[in-house]
């Protein structure tokens, strides 16, 4: 048993996954929505936890899992009706199971009777099954066979074994059974070949032999019977205990002619599939050559059954299909870092090569071009290893919604879409917190009570729609509800009261909505039961923006509100355009760039308030002078002599960034500015260019925001306050 202790960790890891599968399935289970596959998956999850638990002797856990499994089995066979109450009970059962696992893991004992209420509830749901559950042994069944040899005195036992003719068809092989007997003591084995038909009538796959074994053993009769456990119902097995008396040979009466003896040690293993040998075991070898292997050519057929692609999937199902391996995350991270360094080196080489005289070194250049291509592909492959569907995060939300619904007395239906959208693992991990808060906000503040909804002519249950999609090289996650929308007068009033907005200031609807993200707006007066801490939306926004992400809210009074969160697909590498402004170089994410152009003086138009616009692609675009925004000396500062890079934010806003030069496109490794310093406005992160110098990666939406605030005086007041607050 001790040998198996080393698998405990595997068991706990795996059980964690099973619990998640069960929970995800249970949260989708509802009266009238019983997906048999899903029910089976839940059953299997509980079943597997129980099975493994038994191996480690976790009796309480096994006993409870058995109750749980019994009800799931009832659901599976439709003998237990799926009611809302049942689903609740099952979810509680899953929690209890999780706790029991934790106790088993920590080696602690749960409080006596702590599972009882749930056991009672489980049994109430399956009264017919309860008795069976009570009877069925949940503790490990006795299985003592070879273990401790019982203390029975050595004696002689004869075993007559007359197998059914088609015994071989069940995969049993008398050779091995006889050999198993020899493990119990000293055996003398006689084979009776009297049943052999003539050659013409011999069916190669049938068995015509029978055996008499004289066993001198101290084993219990039960152990001897146990050898024939699998064949006893279709064969004649006669075991006679002759006691310690002298060996009394009981020859086979039916055996005419000489029955060749096979000493125990003479039993040779027989190659499987070579039926002739087996069937004729004991017969003179010369006869065996007659029969050739009856049916070969099976491998091809087995191969022809195509390996169906596994339907791994929703909710981080542990059965990850046919050909998956588990890799330590550190190893992948090391690989990612290495590829990162390689990208830098490749950029460095490319930079040096640029200075070579043109026309020469053609092969070198081509080789480098290929290298660049391969580096890019390598990077993509490596990054795809870390890509995960957001479903692992989404699957946690139904529970949150359920709990929030019951806490606030609101009926909530959660609809999710785009769960299979993939993003880098680093991003997935960072989604949980903001999502939790967005959903909490929607249910807490957005959705009305059922009464209010009915009075407003809406369906009783509110809907929260959680969706994910890729958009402009980012992942965009939305939480939309059909509630009352943001109460703007109230928000404005609160903001004024808290001194975040000067009284009498005119704010647009959007600006009012976004006040909920301003530090100091949310007072976090009540600590939520859900996440255990009351964190305001300002903290959410700050955390999101520290990841190069953005969060915003859109609201329509009476119709609902929509939180939109966008994050980069990876927090490791990006495709960028290197630009220069004065002596400084910056990287613009390629996903933001529409085009770059050099306007003629006539294309530039001055707008009031010293703002320049140009006509690009049929619309007027505001120019933002990067050297002004960042205070960089020595820049051209003239769009007609430098360049305008037309950029777009993921919410569709466009602006023209005025820069000196565009130096080229390059993959850059994203390096954190914050790990040793802090976040800066308009800067998403930093990177190291080919010459080893640092360049800042620009945050286009951040630049847009900065430029707006530099221009419009009115909303500035509250933003200044927010900047100050966040800097403290």
């Amino acid at each position, binding site marked *: 048993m001790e040998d198996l202790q080393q698998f405990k960790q595997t068991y706990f890891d795996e059980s964690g996954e099973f619990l998640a599968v069960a929970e995800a399935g249970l949260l989708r289970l509802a009266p009238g929505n019983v997906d048999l596959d899903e029910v089976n998956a839940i059953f299997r999850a509980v079943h597997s936890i129980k099975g493994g638990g038994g191996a480690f002797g976790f009796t309480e856990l096994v006993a409870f899992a058995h109750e749980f499994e019994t009800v799931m089995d009832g659901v599976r066979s439709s003998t237990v009706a799926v009611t809302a109450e049942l689903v609740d009970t099952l979810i509680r059962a899953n929690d209890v199971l999780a706790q029991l696992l934790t106790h088993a893991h920590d080696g602690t004992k749960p409080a006596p009777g702590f599972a009882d209420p749930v056991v009672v509830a489980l049994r109430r749901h399956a009264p017919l099954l309860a008795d069976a559950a009570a009877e069925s042994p949940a503790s490990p069944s006795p299985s003592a066979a070879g273990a401790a040899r019982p203390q029975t005195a050595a004696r002689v036992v004869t075993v007559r074994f007359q197998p059914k003719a088609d015994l071989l068809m069940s995969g049993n092989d008398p050779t091995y059974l006889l050999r198993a007997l020899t493990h119990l003591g000293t055996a003398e084995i006689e084979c009776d070949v009297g049943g052999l038909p003539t050659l013409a009538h011999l069916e190669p796959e049938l068995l015509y032999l029978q055996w008499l074994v004289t066993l001198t053993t101290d084993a219990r009769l039960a152990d001897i019977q146990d050898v024939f456990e699998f064949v006893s119902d279709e064969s004649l097995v006669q075991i006679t205990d002759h006691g310690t008396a002298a060996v009394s040979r009981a020859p086979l009466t039916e055996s005419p002619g000489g029955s060749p003896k096979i000493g125990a040690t003479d039993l040779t293993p027989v190659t499987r599939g070579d039926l002739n040998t087996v069937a004729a075991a004991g017969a003179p070898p010369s006869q065996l050559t007659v029969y050739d292997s009856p049916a070969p050519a*099976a491998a091809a057929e087995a191969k022809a059954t195509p390996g169906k692609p596994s339907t791994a999937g929703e909710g981080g199902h542990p*059965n990850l299909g*046919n050909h998956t391996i588990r890799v330590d995350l550190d190893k992948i991270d090391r690989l990612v870092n290495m590829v990162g360094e390689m990208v830098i080196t490749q950029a460095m080489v490319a930079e040096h090569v640029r200075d070579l005289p043109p026309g020469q070194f053609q092969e070198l250049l081509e080789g480098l071009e290929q290298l660049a291509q391969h580096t890019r592909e390598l990077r993509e492959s490596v990054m795809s290893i870390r890509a995960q569907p957001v479903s692992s995060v989404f699957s946690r939300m139904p529970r949150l919604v359920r709990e929030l619904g019951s806490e606030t007395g609101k009926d909530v239906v959660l609809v999710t879409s785009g769960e299979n959208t993939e993003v880098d693992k680093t991003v997935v991990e960072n989604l949980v917190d903001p999502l939790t808060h967005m959903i909490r906000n929607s249910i807490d503040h957005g959705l009305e009570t059922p009464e209010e909804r009915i009075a407003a002519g809406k369906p009783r249950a509110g809907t929260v729609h959680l969706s994910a999609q890729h958009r402009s090289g980012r992942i965009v996650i939305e939480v939309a509800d059909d509630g009352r929308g943001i109460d703007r007068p109230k928000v404005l009033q609160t903001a004024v009261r808290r001194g975040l907005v000067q009284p009498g200031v005119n704010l647009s609807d959007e600006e009012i909505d976004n006040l909920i993200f301003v530090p100091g707006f949310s007072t976090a007066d009540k600590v939520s039961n859900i996440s255990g801490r009351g964190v305001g939306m300002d903290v959410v926004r700050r955390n999101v923006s520290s990841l190069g992400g953005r969060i915003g809210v859109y609201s329509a009074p009476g119709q609902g509100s929509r939180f939109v969160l966008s994050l980069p697909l990876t927090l490791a590498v990006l495709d960028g355009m290197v630009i220069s402004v004065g002596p400084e170089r910056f990287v613009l994410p390629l996903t933001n760039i529409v085009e770059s152009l050099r306007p003629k003086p006539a294309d530039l138009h001055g707008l009031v308030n010293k703002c320049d616009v140009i006509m690009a692609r049929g619309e007027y675009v505001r120019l933002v002078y990067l050297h002004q925004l960042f205070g960089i000396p020595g820049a051209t500062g003239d769009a007609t002599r430098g360049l305008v890079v037309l950029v777009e934010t993921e919410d569709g806003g466009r602006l023209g960034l005025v820069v000196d030069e565009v130096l080229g496109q390059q993959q850059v490794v994203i390096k954190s500015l914050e790990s040793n310093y802090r976040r800066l406005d308009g800067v998403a992160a930093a990177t190291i260019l080919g010459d080893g110098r640092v360049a800042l990666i620009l945050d286009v939406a951040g630049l847009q925001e900065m430029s707006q605030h530099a221009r419009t005086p009115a909303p500035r007041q509250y933003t200044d306050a927010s900047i100050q607050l966040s800097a403290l």
Partner: protein
Amino acid sequence: MKKKVLTVDDSRTMREMVSFTLKGAGYEVVEANDGQHALTVLGSSKVDLVIADLNMPIMDGLTLIRKLRATPQYRTTPILMLTTEADDKKKAEGRAAGATGWIVKPFDPGKLISVVQKVCG
């Protein structure tokens, strides 16, 4: 020649335990997650024994046993099914499908080895 055993179970814990125990007893062990996967594995390598869990996603144990029995090459290969309780109904179903025998979970290593020896030496 080492005997080769295929353990088919959707539980990694079970697979690893079976594998560890049998490797210790001198068997070669290959693993599969479910019945479908087992067929793929069996298509490319021949084994002397299959130990299959009954409850598995994609393709369950009974279906796997039936498919193997319908495949000439595996018509008489020993197949042990893993069951959680000493459930006679399950055993009967398994026997009808063509299982050679069964192992009741949880098993101790000695029991597993002795059962395996009984059916494949």
